[in-house]
């Protein structure tokens, strides 16, 4: 399509000198356009989409590849992470206790889960995969995630975890540095025993790998998925092999405290 600009309509029935003046003005304008295009100095790009009538316009004004409009020599974003010694015992790396601390008492007996006879059989049938030969790098988190996602024994354990022991998004906190009291029996008891057995099968060097924050395992269950959460702060898989039991876990939303918790940092 040819554009009908206002200037072209003015060209009829005008004195010659007026034509010359207007033509010069148009030329000046186009000269400015040419300078602009030269300054851009990039190869026009082919049109994408649109219709054929726009291609003439494109050849005049498309001066820069669209995809390059914002690309500016990207550099690798450095995510500085504080290095943590793996030789130190598990700790919260200087984490201060939260202002609202659930009332927790530790069971001095470090009680083992009391499994039913059926669950004991299930535990016996559970044969977690090997974590590989000594010296081969191990990713115990990935290995355990795979084991838990596929194990029928784990699914059997989940069947014994009532809704009241799950979050609205079907998450179960299995171990946060302590075993919950609910892990002393029932489905959580079996899950705990299965986890301990799986971790116990791992090579010793795999047990000292440092984890930061919770690890979440997704386990299919009927038409949905259960999230098994394990860990809190800085921890190692080996930590859960000899871990105490909480006798009371206060379940509350610690994210929305009242204003009274605001205290100076020092």
């Amino acid at each position, binding site marked *: *399509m040819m554009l009908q*600009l206002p*200037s072209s309509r003015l060209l009829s029935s005008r004195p010659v*000198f*007026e034509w010359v*003046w207007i033509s*010069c*003005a148009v030329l000046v304008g*186009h000269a400015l*356009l040419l300078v*602009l295009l030269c300054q*851009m100095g990039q190869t026009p790009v082919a*049109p*994408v*989409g*649109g219709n054929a009538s*726009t291609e003439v316009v*494109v050849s005049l*004004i*498309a001066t*820069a590849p*669209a*995809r390059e*409009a914002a690309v*500016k020599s990207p550099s690798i974003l450095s*995510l*500085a992470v504080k290095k943590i010694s793996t030789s130190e015992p598990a700790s*919260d*790396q*200087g984490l*201060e206790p*939260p*202002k609202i601390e*659930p009332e927790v008492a530790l069971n001095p007996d470090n009680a083992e889960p009391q499994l039913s006879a059926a669950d004991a059989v299930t535990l016996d049938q559970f044969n977690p995969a090997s974590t590989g030969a000594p010296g081969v790098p191990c990713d115990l988190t990935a290995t355990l995630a795979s084991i838990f996602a596929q194990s029928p024994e784990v699914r059997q354990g989940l069947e014994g975890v009532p809704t009241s022991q*799950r*979050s*609205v*998004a*079907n*998450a*179960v*906190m299995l171990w*946060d540095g302590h075993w919950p009291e609910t892990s002393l029996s029932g489905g959580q008891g079996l899950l705990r025993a299965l986890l301990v057995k799986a971790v116990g099968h791992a090579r010793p060097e795999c047990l000292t790998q440092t984890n*930061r*924050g919770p*690890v979440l*395992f*997704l386990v299919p269950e009927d038409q*949905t998925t259960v*999230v098994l959460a394990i860990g809190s702060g*800085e921890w190692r898989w080996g930590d859960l092999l000899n871990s105490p039991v909480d006798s009371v876990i*206060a*379940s509350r*939303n*610690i*994210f*929305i*405290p*009242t204003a009274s918790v*605001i205290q100076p940092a020092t």
Partner: protein
Amino acid sequence: MNILKRGGIAILTTTSVISLMAGTLPTYASSHREAPGVTKSPKVDSTDFYMFRSYEPGREGFVTLIANYQPLQDPGGGPNYFTMDPDAVYEIHVDNVGDAKEHLTFQFKFSNALANDKGIQLNIGGTTNSIALRDAGMISQTPTDPNLGESESYTLTLITGDRRLGTRAAVTNVSGGGTTFGKPFDNAGRKTFPDYATYASKFIYNVAIPGCSTAGRVFVGQRAEAFAVNLGSVFDLVNFVPIEGDSAPGAHDGGGFPGGITQSRANDELVGKKNVTSIALEVPISCLVGAGNGVIGGWQTASLPQARLLDPSATYKQPSVSGGAYVQVSRLGMPLVNELVIGLPDKDKFNASEPSGDAQFGAYVTNPTFPAILNLLFKAPVNATLHTNIADLAPNNFPRNDLVAAFLTGVPTLNQLKTVTASEMLRLNTGVAVTPRATQKNLGVAGDDLAGYPNGRRPGDDTVDITLRVAMGALCYPVPINGTPTNLGVCTPANAPVGNVPFTDGAPISATDLQNAFPYLNTPLPGSPLSEHR
């Protein structure tokens, strides 16, 4: 008119075209009018992006993606209301690999048409004239309604690979195989639409998605705003005390922070007052995840041709001439990033950029300015109110690895893609179970609901409150998982003096405020009577 003036007009005309083109070339411009450039192009202004496992009963095997455009729509904005830009492409991108590049793109292209090329016509004293309005009577049918003089339609294309160079295939209507879909006329009011909800529902299509054995659904049309925000007061130097004033949201007991704002719809600038245009798509999970780990990253964009020339002999079909490669002018993944995180000089650059180039914006996340602004505004009153001596309300862990995890990389084993490339997009673990609407927590993950923001984003997630708290260091404190306070290990309470404070803008939203079925956002507010949106 003398010749000098006429010559001047000629120069002006030509140079205006140049200026127009020059202005269009780096068409940077996107959330609600958050960048200077995009304020010039409201039709392509991205406002909110949602991505979540469908919680409509029976649809748990799907992911719903909603890309909103055109902010601050006054329901009474007739007679033309809010059509989409026919020159633009509107796109939803999905990265299922983790390289910060799109591997699936759903591209929407719109067009408008007058009935019989004339719209509705009337015979006035023997002369047939087109009417000045888009409609001339009650509307109840789909685009063929005889009282509707202008219809709007769109095509939907699935692009596999690069959005411009990848393989293109049309998404088709399961019923009849057509490739064109209708968009409902905006909600002009109760007289035009006695039952707008039923009318709009006719524009929900079951669609065949190439390469996907199960049908999806698509809807494009006006919806009621669901982004709850105390907009005017926030940008008036936070002209309220942004801490919960009740002991718990909605408690109405004044037992929270002294003088703090309390939850009320009256604090909201958008919900219940404005509309927006939604592109909503529901896709089977299996068709989105590819060969990845079940986590997908998503974001929306809008792009315009590089140039637009105003045509002095404009017609309905061609009011202007556009050409050139498409230039992205709007981008949105996580809410409020360009609004509150990216610096003013770079907002339009961000809108024109792609996630793969986000390293250039990294410092805005690792060393954010927004918490420092809140410190400037509120340190003195907070200390005075509480008789404390907090030196700085803003967190001091730099780089802010807590924000990097939330906004740029995802949280390991929650919503981190198989390959980790620091980039800004919304990340959803499609393996996490759906939380039914009735039990959703509007603080998402921070509220002990792993199916919520920032693991994707649902319409009922109160992202303003979440963002305020996360910015001030909430992730430095334990968050609840199944009721158990859990340390995320990214920073400590010592880093965030007020990270455990319930910051809020006082504008609440929750899933029960919204509908429980696709497209989830509510029926748009009617243009009349005024009482329904004032």
